[in-house]
């Protein structure tokens, strides 16, 4: 999509922030003595992805086929001046939002699902497997697989599986097989169920099942966040934003996004890292990884199959409450993002459920978009910012990572 002239906005290269970081990123750490969990990645990740994961090239060429797919799924996504929101807040500056909900799967997750699936298909893989919590990542994976002619399998955290039948349905329409996790399809799942037959599941368990399944069947496993390569793919958000602002003749003064694993936020702000823009990472009060987490090595997954990363974490064993914003429940955050929060370049703040729901309503009533609850945090933080100094003439740029059309039920609980 959409117009030939929009090719001016869609970049030809992804951007990897690592060569421009103030300090060197700590490498992933093997958790075991005699085997390498990093080497194990060779078995479950597409080769090309793994190469990207560790090559840290500042510019990574977007394959032509992926470019075409990006067009097809709705890239470039719009950068919208939120005029009605500005008015409602009485804010003197401008507020823009980058709208990742405009992609066909409804969130930024497709930005990385497409290249990952493309690389996998290119290596002759017939099926990809992944896990999903809130459902956005599973949805993106299912479509990306379908567009690349592969089957897909999604281990979906059982509580989500039960609460979000629409998510399951959309994945199935895209051709995915969706199983509630813990499942009886993996040893780890069977073990977990043996211990507790009605286990509600966690993302950690689902990841472990997906990885085990991929190893077992020789399929490839796709990852939705945290890893460097994922964040590199997501840089398309910020790169487009930069060109769109240029076209508008504007600069970013403040950039605000939400953080689950850190992919949408990092993809959004990293292309601006060398500039002067203030950057605010908004997290859920219930999962306060930056404000209450520890900066150090921790596991990506609960079962510890994947390597450890140096990041802010609440502990791989952290059991998050079943909050409205499923995508923000992850215990850690991407290493490069963690480093920049640690160094103070990026500020972090926590927002609670009521404030987020109110912000979502305000945004819906003024801009017409029902944001994903995850994105609601970014919006709430932006509203806080604008209200703190309504006379400010700063340009606030928000990343609205997804729409919330399949999460409308959250409005029935909490504040009315």
């Amino acid at each position: 999509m959409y117009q030939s002239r929009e090719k001016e906005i869609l970049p030809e290269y992804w951007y990897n922030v690592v060569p421009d970081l103030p300090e060197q990123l700590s490498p992933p750490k093997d958790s075991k003595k005699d085997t390498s969990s990093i080497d194990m990645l060779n078995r479950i990740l597409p080769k090309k992805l793994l190469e990207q994961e560790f090559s840290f090239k500042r510019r990574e060429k977007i394959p032509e086929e992926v470019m075409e797919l990006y067009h097809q799924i709705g890239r470039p996504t719009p950068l919208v001046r939120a005029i009605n929101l500005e008015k409602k807040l009485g804010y003197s500056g401008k507020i823009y939002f980058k709208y990742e909900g405009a992609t066909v799967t409804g969130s930024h997750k497709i930005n990385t699902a497409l290249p990952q699936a493309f690389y996998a298909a290119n290596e002759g893989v017939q099926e990809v497997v992944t896990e999903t919590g809130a459902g956005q990542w599973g949805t993106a994976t299912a479509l990306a697989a379908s567009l690349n002619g592969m089957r897909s399998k999604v281990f979906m955290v059982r509580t989500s599986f039960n609460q979000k039948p629409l998510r399951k349905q959309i994945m199935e329409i895209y051709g995915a097989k969706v199983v509630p996790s813990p499942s009886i399809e993996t040893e780890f799942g069977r073990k977990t169920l043996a211990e507790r037959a009605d286990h509600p599941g966690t993302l950690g368990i689902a990841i472990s099942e997906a990885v085990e399944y991929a190893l077992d069947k020789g399929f490839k496993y796709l990852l939705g966040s945290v890893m460097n390569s994922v964040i590199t793919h997501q840089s398309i958000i910020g790169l487009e934003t930069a060109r769109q602002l240029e076209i508008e003749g504007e600069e970013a003064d403040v950039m605000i996004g939400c953080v689950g694993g850190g992919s949408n936020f990092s993809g959004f702000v990293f292309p601006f890292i060398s500039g002067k823009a203030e950057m605010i990472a908004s997290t859920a009060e219930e999962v306060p990884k930056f404000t209450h987490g520890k900066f150090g090595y921790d596991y990506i997954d609960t079962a510890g199959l994947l390597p450890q990363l140096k990041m802010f974490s609440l502990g791989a064993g952290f059991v998050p409450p079943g909050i409205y914003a499923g995508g923000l429940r992850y215990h850690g955050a991407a290493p490069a993002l963690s480093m920049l929060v640690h160094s103070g370049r990026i500020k972090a703040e926590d927002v609670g459920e009521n404030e987020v729901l109110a912000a979502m309503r305000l945004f819906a009533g003024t801009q017409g978009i029902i944001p994903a609850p995850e994105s609601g945090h970014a919006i709430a933080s932006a509203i806080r910012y604008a209200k703190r100094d309504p006379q400010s003439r700063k340009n606030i740029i928000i990343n609205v990572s997804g729409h919330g059309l399949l999460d409308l039920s959250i409005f029935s609980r909490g504040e009315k």
Partner: protein
Amino acid sequence: MKPRLIIYLTLGFPDNEFVEDFVQNIPDGIIDGFELGLPSSDPRYDGPKIRSTHGERNHFSQDHMGRVLQTCSDRKIRVNLLSYYSDIENEGGKNLQMLAGLSAHEMIVPDLLIDYAEVADAFISSLKASGISLIPFFNAATPDKVIKKYVNETDSWIYYGLQPSTGINVPVNIPEVVERAKSVIHERDIIFGFGIRNGGDAAEIIRAGGHGIAIGSAIVDDLAKHDERAAILKISEYREAIDSAV
């Protein structure tokens, strides 16, 4: 220029005697230097192969190190040492004083610029005061600014890791890695190491403009089996590969 070949050994592995014999017996001219690792209790940037060579720290003795360095000095084989900063820190600089009196005047500290960036400048100064140059260890994850800073603050050759750590064998585009390194580092020799799996890789590095290679994991199995012949044979093959790549 003739490409350089550096062989990594962990001191004391598989045992002191073997290492001492090995540096004595290696034929003249096939290598350009040894990189000698001080066993570490937490060699955390190493893969399982090299990790296994660190074993128990008590394999190692200062006397052993002294003998190995002496042999190399006698044979005019250039030597550099490798030690994790975490160990140096734990030992309160004991090693450093010891090293100052030795003939190895170059040193690699793989975790220094990553996990101890805040003390790196001071440490480099104190190394200098002891007559030792830091060989900066960089890899694809090292930011441009960091590379430039430490290239400026040092004067030795550069060690550049192909893989993010040893023992990882993720797919790597060798020409791209070499090109990136050369585009940031000027007028200094760059030796590539970490994850060179075979002569093909080695030749590719040289063809792409690398000044040399460092080999470690590739001979660990032979060393573990005390098979000096096999190790030396493998080293010769690398030698041949890089020489014919020029």
